[in-house]
């Protein structure tokens, strides 16, 4: 582990501060994610977990007041949301949005071709795309019936989340941010979604899994766990930290003075 310090992380967040409508939510986040690593962010409600995800994705309601985020050495905060996506940052939404009248496949083909164009690859034609979609569908156990329905329209909570993972499988991002993907899922749906994520884990892809509950981490086993309280990471550790939290509750760490910045994996 000691040589990690010298490696260039895929994602490097330095002293990140962000506010919404003048209220500071993130108060100095430091975090490094290397290729192939799965990091979990846990924390009580209102601690800033989802804000972190949305700031990384580029949602404009959040204003970054200080700090830096490097993605493969590039300044992520300078990029528009679509540019971040094309560079390989993917966010699985906590509440995936419905787009009436636009079929899921049509939408995904437009997205994939935008990403491919950015990477200097030729556009995929309908046949190639269909082949890819079938392959990925199997991979993440996506039901065929969801392909031609309008994006997320009338999908159940579980179907929406599965669709997010399906999008992820097709777009093959470098960094996947899962924003409370477990919320509103029963145990079976949770397992399907987690299985989907697990097959997408590989040595080139990093994950930032945001969750309130330890439960999800039984299925998506993280390499590192960070606890976010009041806009700061107050503790980092291995996967056993999640279990400890489950047992003791967040109050254990609430009000805790932030330690000096914790090196990743410390």
């Amino acid at each position, binding site marked *: 582990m000691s040589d990690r310090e010298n490696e260039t992380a895929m994602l490097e967040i330095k002293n990140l501060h962000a506010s919404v409508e003048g209220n500071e939510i993130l108060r100095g986040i430091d975090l490094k994610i290397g290729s192939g690593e799965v990091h979990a962010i846990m924390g009580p409600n209102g601690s800033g977990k989802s804000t972190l995800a949305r700031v990384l*994705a*580029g*949602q*404009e309601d959040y*204003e*970054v007041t200080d700090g830096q985020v490097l993605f493969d050495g590039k300044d992520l*905060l*300078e990029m*528009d*949301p*679509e540019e*971040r*996506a*094309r560079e390989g940052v*993917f*966010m699985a*939404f906590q509440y*995936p*949005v*419905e*787009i*009436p*009248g*636009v079929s899921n496949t*049509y*939408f*995904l083909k*437009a*997205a*994939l071709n*935008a*990403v491919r164009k*950015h990477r200097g690859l030729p556009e995929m034609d309908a046949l190639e795309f269909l082949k890819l979609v079938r392959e990925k569908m199997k991979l993440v156990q996506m039901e065929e019936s969801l392909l031609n329905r*309008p994006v997320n329209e009338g999908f159940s909570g579980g179907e929406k989340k599965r669709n997010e993972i399906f*999008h992820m499988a097709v*777009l093959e991002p470098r960094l996947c941010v899962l924003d409370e993907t477990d919320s509103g899922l029963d145990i079976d749906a949770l397992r399907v979604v987690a299985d989907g994520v697990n097959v997408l884990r590989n040595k080139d892809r990093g994950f930032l899994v945001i969750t309130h509950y330890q439960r999800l981490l039984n299925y998506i086993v993280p390499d590192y766990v960070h606890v976010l309280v009041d806009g700061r990471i107050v503790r980092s550790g291995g996967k056993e930290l999640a279990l400890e939290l489950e047992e003791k509750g967040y109050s254990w760490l609430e009000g805790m003075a932030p330690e000096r910045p914790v090196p990743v994996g410390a």
Partner: protein
Amino acid sequence: MQTTETNTIEQFATQEYKFGFVTEVEQETFPPGLNEDIIRMLSAKKEEPAWMLEWRLKAYRHWLTMEEPTWANIHYAPIDFQSIAYYAGPKPKGSGPKSLDEVDPEILKTYEKLGIPLHEREMLAGVAVDAVFDSVSVATTFKGKLAEMGIIFCSFSEAVRNHPELVQQYMGSVVPYTDNFYATLNSAVFSDGSFVYVPKGVRCPMELSTYFRINARNTGQFERTLIVADEGAYVSYLEGCTAPMRDENQLHAAVVELVALKDATIKYSTVQNWYPGDEQGRGGIYNFVTKRGKCEGANSKISWTQVETGSAITWKYPSVILKGDHSTGEFYSVALTKGRQQADTGTKMIHIGKNTKSNIVSKGISAGEGQNTYRGAVRILKGADGARNFSQCDSMLIGDKCGAHTFPYIDVQNPTARMEHEATTSKIGEDQIFYCNQRGISTEDAVSMIVSGFCKEVFRELPMEFAVEAQKLLAVNLEGSVG
């Protein structure tokens, strides 16, 4: 990071109009003004029979007793009807074009620029075109092929001369010359338009299409279209329109009449892209149109589909009179207003026969400072046992300076009627755009995708090539909406 949605939307209205060029062609134009002499001149110019002139004069005299309607939710300075020229046409070489070879090459070029080639060999397979340039029909394609099946497809003037019995029988039978201010004006001064007759049991093998082009300055365009589908006949008709960019407003007051006899079907589709005026609301076409169809016979069907993206002001209500038992009326509409455009549009479904059905799907999109009004009336008369209506009116707002208004009128005189009305208003969501962005899709493509999705139920009613065209047109109109 500061590309806010507001910025995005404020640039919405700045898209340039692509069809605003003027054709240099030798024109013959009447002096401005309207009186009986002008009407006589017009009628003489068109070598019309006496009955036609009489009809025009009756309409004109009636028009003098009428007042301009003010009930629509639109605002504009009063129109000076004496400052408009009521006839403009390319000067004929000899006695008027007999074939395409005799049409002024400048005009052929105009249509080619607009993507409507008039040479039959270059035509999209399966579409016959009647091209109307200002007041005159300049070319009708595939006439011969259609004539073999007994289908008449020609300019209105030609029909008056060559098929007087049909014109006399049906003209004014759906929209009488006393109908309303603009329809009456049209009856007095209409210059040209298309005429279609499909005989008994014939299914028209190709889409028929009229392409209207206003070119001349300070002229009104008053075309008149009459389509008759005899028993068991089927016809699908398309209409497209553009005009040059000019600073003054131009009046377009058309009348379209459809007659469907027993078991006949008429499908009428419009893609209207008249010049909408500039960002400050200068210029643009006043599109005051009366369109109405009559399901005369049992089991007949009339279906209107319209995509309205142009014009400074649109005022039109394509309607269906459901007289025959078991007849069906449909209205599918997309109306987009941006910049300072205003649209007051909708439909009327009048149920007279038993077990008549009507279906209304209206999609209004407002952006910039556009004002979009849906106005629809459904009337179920006493004898219309078992009548059914379904209406769906959806409005989408883009930005916060535009408006959407819905005025449904319902009049039910028969207790067996079944009516359903659904209405929604949505704002194109920042969250929807962000979701698309997060998948790599640009804001511009996202807006266009979301709007197309919103209009899907209407687009799928359009013939294939037109649906693609309409989608492109909408995308073009939405271009420049992003920062």
